[in-house]
């Protein structure tokens, strides 16, 4: 029931979107790519704006005349954060829509099977968030990521904590999931190597009342608390922590957490001045031409979700797709597309701390991370550090 | 000519769309009278009564043929509460009071404001209930339950009172008192009563008219006094033969065969 409703809804949305974006495009005369993500499941809050950023980029691109004179047609499918639906969508896109590559994707649970299936038939897949390590060195063929990988984020956050307090006790929080545990363990490794003491509290994935967990955290008397999860959890955890008497610094790890979520959470927690935000992509409050360009496109084409860092993530992925398709030439085959992505370098000034650089051995590349702090007076975020460069981690770790 | 309050014509009731419970039942209840409907267990008396007072949708019972006329209204297929509000009140055979409610709450449940039947008047008929007021109805004795049930029914301001098995499970002395009381109440309040009874003796003693049912049909009817003296009725339903000598099994079978079917 639920699937049908949302599927119809989004089918209508795709029709509308493709009608707007590429009125003259046809399968023979356009680059056809697939986009699969969670638009109706538990993480739709994060993935919808990411898709919208990608869509904005494609609209602007097609309005400019497309690539090599060809428009780009995007086939959008909703996986509802369900693995079987994600795989079915990917098969449909490769068999019926004949896409050259697939972009987007939601969590590890949907990525892993899609990566595996597409590898079999040689379709490159580029994800934003990545819960699994296929893209990290030693990278597996056809699997790429331009987003946040938990392990790398965990380390980056551990390092950036120095900009808040040089020592003390960090309590990490996450929900009980593979990705959450991975982020936590890497954060812990880095924090301990920098001389912090570490403790952690995990809660079930479906939790929505965080009070008991927040009280458990407050009782540990932390100096800094880090939350490795999505929007909803932050929305619940931050006020719950403050209610439980913990008023110290709290770091939001940006796994699809929007600025608006941070604002809401900070407002709920009583105009909190101690909420930090670590992100791989810039925030919408940054003042630079790169952000201004996305913002202008957002104003021009409109998005249903409030403008956020997630739109910047999607936009950058759009730029990545454009660069790849351009290098691929016309006609573009899957093999050719994969080949060019392997050595692709995409610069997204203002949106990231440095270029996205792929190599045949490393399908993730170096990433750049930055610490921001929420300012309730200006209701915006201010950078508290420069961009920290992290090389892609090599697995297995020692 | 007597004023007929309730008329049942050619009634047929089917349960669960397959089981025919009564067939071709016709009866008349004149205004102000007490009519007894007697017959053995399973004869279709209760079904007839229930058809008059209305079925709940959940009972999956349907009047498939015939008419029930109350006053000048055809009332086939009305819901119980609609009939209750029209003044047709049934005292059922089982589950006649709310066992989890106190006696007082049971009476309050039923009470409809206005009218000449007040709580005081009802308690006047059943003084025992006053003492039991705060007790749970589930803990009352059989006779007390019956009193409470009639009291509740009276507080619903009935025009036509339908009583299913007043005597069931009660001691003979209690039955006698209750029947006498019912007669008195009926006359004092001008109530019309349709009484369904297995205990035909007790019922016909206070009734003006009687109907005898068997196997889903009416087999005898007439004035109560006539029925009491009718030899077949006496033999089959009143527990005694007109003649003193006992008959053989074969003779009884013959009587059965000879019986006329009405309706």
């Amino acid at each position: 029931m639920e699937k049908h409703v949302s599927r119809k809804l989004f089918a209508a949305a795709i029709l509308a979107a493709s009608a707007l974006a590429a009125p003259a495009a046809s399968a023979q005369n356009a680059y056809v790519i697939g986009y699969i993500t969670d638009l109706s499941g538990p993480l739709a809050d994060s993935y919808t704006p990411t898709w919208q950023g990608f869509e904005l980029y494609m609209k602007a691109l097609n309005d400019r005349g497309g690539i090599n004179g060809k428009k780009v047609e995007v086939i959008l499918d909703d996986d509802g954060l369900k693995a079987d639906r994600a795989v079915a969508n990917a098969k449909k896109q490769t068999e019926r829509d004949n896409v050259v590559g697939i972009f987007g994707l939601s969590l590890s649970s949907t990525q892993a099977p899609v990566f595996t299936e597409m590898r079999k038939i040689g379709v490159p897949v580029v994800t934003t968030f990545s819960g699994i390590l296929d893209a990290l060195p030693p990278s597996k063929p056809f699997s790429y990521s331009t987003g946040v990988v938990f392990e790398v984020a965990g380390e980056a956050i551990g390092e950036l904590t120095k900009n808040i307090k040089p020592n003390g006790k960090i309590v990490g929080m996450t929900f009980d999931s593979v990705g959450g545990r991975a982020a936590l363990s890497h954060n812990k490794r880095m924090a301990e190597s920098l001389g912090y003491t570490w403790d952690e509290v995990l809660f079930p994935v479906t939790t929505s009342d965080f009070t008991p967990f927040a009280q458990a955290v407050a009782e540990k008397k932390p100096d800094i608390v880090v939350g490795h999860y999505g929007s909803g959890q932050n929305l619940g955890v931050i006020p719950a922590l403050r209610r439980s008497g913990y008023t110290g610094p709290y770091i939001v790890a940006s796994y699809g957490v929007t600025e608006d979520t941070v604002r809401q959470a900070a407002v709920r927690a009583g105009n909190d001045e101690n909420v930090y935000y670590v992100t791989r992509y810039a925030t919408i409050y940054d003042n630079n031409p790169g952000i201004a360009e996305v913002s202008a496109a957002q104003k021009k084409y409109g998005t249903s979700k409030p403008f956020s860092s997630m739109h910047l993530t999607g936009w950058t992925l759009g730029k990545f797709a454009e660069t790849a398709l351009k290098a691929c030439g016309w006609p573009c085959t899957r093999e050719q597309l994969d080949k060019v992505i392997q050595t692709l370098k995409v610069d997204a000034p203002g949106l990231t701390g440095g270029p996205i650089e792929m190599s045949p051995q490393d399908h993730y590349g170096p990433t750049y991370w930055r610490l921001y702090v929420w300012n309730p007076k200006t209701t915006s975020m201010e950078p508290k550090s420069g961009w920290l460069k992290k090389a892609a981690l090599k697995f297995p770790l020692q | 000519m007597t004023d007929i309050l309730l008329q049942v014509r050619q009634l047929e009731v089917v349960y669960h769309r397959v089981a025919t419970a009564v067939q071709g039942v016709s009866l008349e209840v004149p205004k102000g009278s007490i009519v007894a409907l007697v017959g053995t267990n399973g004869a279709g008396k209760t079904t007839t009564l229930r058809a008059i007072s209305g079925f709940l949708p959940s009972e999956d019972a349907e009047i498939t043929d015939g008419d029930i006329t109350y006053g000048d209204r055809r009332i086939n297929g009305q819901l119980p509460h609609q009939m209750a509000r029209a003044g047709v009140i049934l005292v059922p055979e089982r589950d006649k009071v709310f066992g989890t409610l106190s006696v007082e709450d049971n009476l309050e449940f039923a009470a409809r404001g206005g009218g000449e039947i007040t709580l005081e008047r009802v308690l006047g008929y059943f003084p025992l209930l006053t003492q039991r007021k705060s007790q749970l109805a589930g803990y009352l004795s059989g006779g007390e339950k019956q009193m409470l049930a009639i009291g509740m029914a009276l507080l619903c301001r009935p025009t036509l009172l339908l009583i299913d098995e007043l005597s069931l499970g009660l001691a003979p002395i209690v039955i006698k008192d209750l029947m006498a009381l019912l007669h008195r109440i009926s006359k004092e309040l001008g109530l019309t009563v349709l009484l369904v009874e297995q205990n035909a003796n007790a019922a016909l003693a206070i009734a003006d008219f009687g109907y005898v049912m068997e196997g889903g049909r009416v087999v005898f009817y007439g004035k109560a006094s006539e029925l009491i003296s009718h030899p077949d009725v006496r033999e089959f339903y009143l527990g005694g033969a007109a003649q003193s000598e006992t008959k053989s099994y074969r003779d009884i079978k013959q009587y059965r065969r000879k019986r006329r079917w009405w309706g």
Partner: protein
Amino acid sequence: MEFAATIVILTCTYALLAAGTVILYKAGRVVNFAHGELAIVGGYVFYSAGLMSGGTSLWFPVAGAVVFSIIMGMFIYMAMMRRLVGEPFYVAILVTVGIGIVLKSAILVIWRAERLTIDVGVTPAIRMAGGATLSYMDIASVVLTVAFFAGLYLFFRFTRLGVQFRGTAENALLASQRGVDVNFVLSLAWVIAILAASLSGVLYGGRAFLSTESVTIGLAGLTAALVGGLDSLRGAVAGAFIVACAQYLTVRLVDPVLSEAVPFLLLVIVMSIRPWGLFGTQEELDRV
């Protein structure tokens, strides 16, 4: 101190849900599996009504939630449950499961599965030793829950309609024969149950957030009702308290990750020792 407060507030959330489950069971022998969904949708309606009125007054969202409960209660009973009387009990249960799925889709379609928080009275009202605070909403949730149960008690005990309600729950046929419109009473049961659920949803939205996942509070509420005994309002409160304690103590003393499983573990234990629940009547088992 704060742990006691948390348990009490959690108890309130679950007790309101369990009370609705008990009322529906008593009135119509229906176990409602859509209760969590009804609660959360009630919260969403409250939020949207507040948004529509510009968030200036509480009356509009409250009226919105009440109207939602009345319409939803009448609709579920008159359009669905009424037609199922006489069917095997599991048919009604399956229908409620279906209602739950439809409501969840409604959250997706109407509110786009957006996580919403109801920010009414979230400012601290009481500061406890150690810096923990209780908001006005927290206090309101206790006050409103107590008021709801007191109101329910007075209604059932002292009003004619309440007495008719109890009578109908015991014997619908006799109630109908005594002039009570059973359909009205059973619709009312749904309305009251959904009203309690909506209140619970609003309080939950103030404390945590509303989302498609938060419908799982319905399971905690159902567990509370089952633990307490499906036909006992006292049991609903006791069951809610037990579930809340079990959940909270698991988080604090055992392993936070287990807290979701605890209510079910509890359910299994109670069901195997005392299948009719702590305050339930044993005979009720035969009816199901």
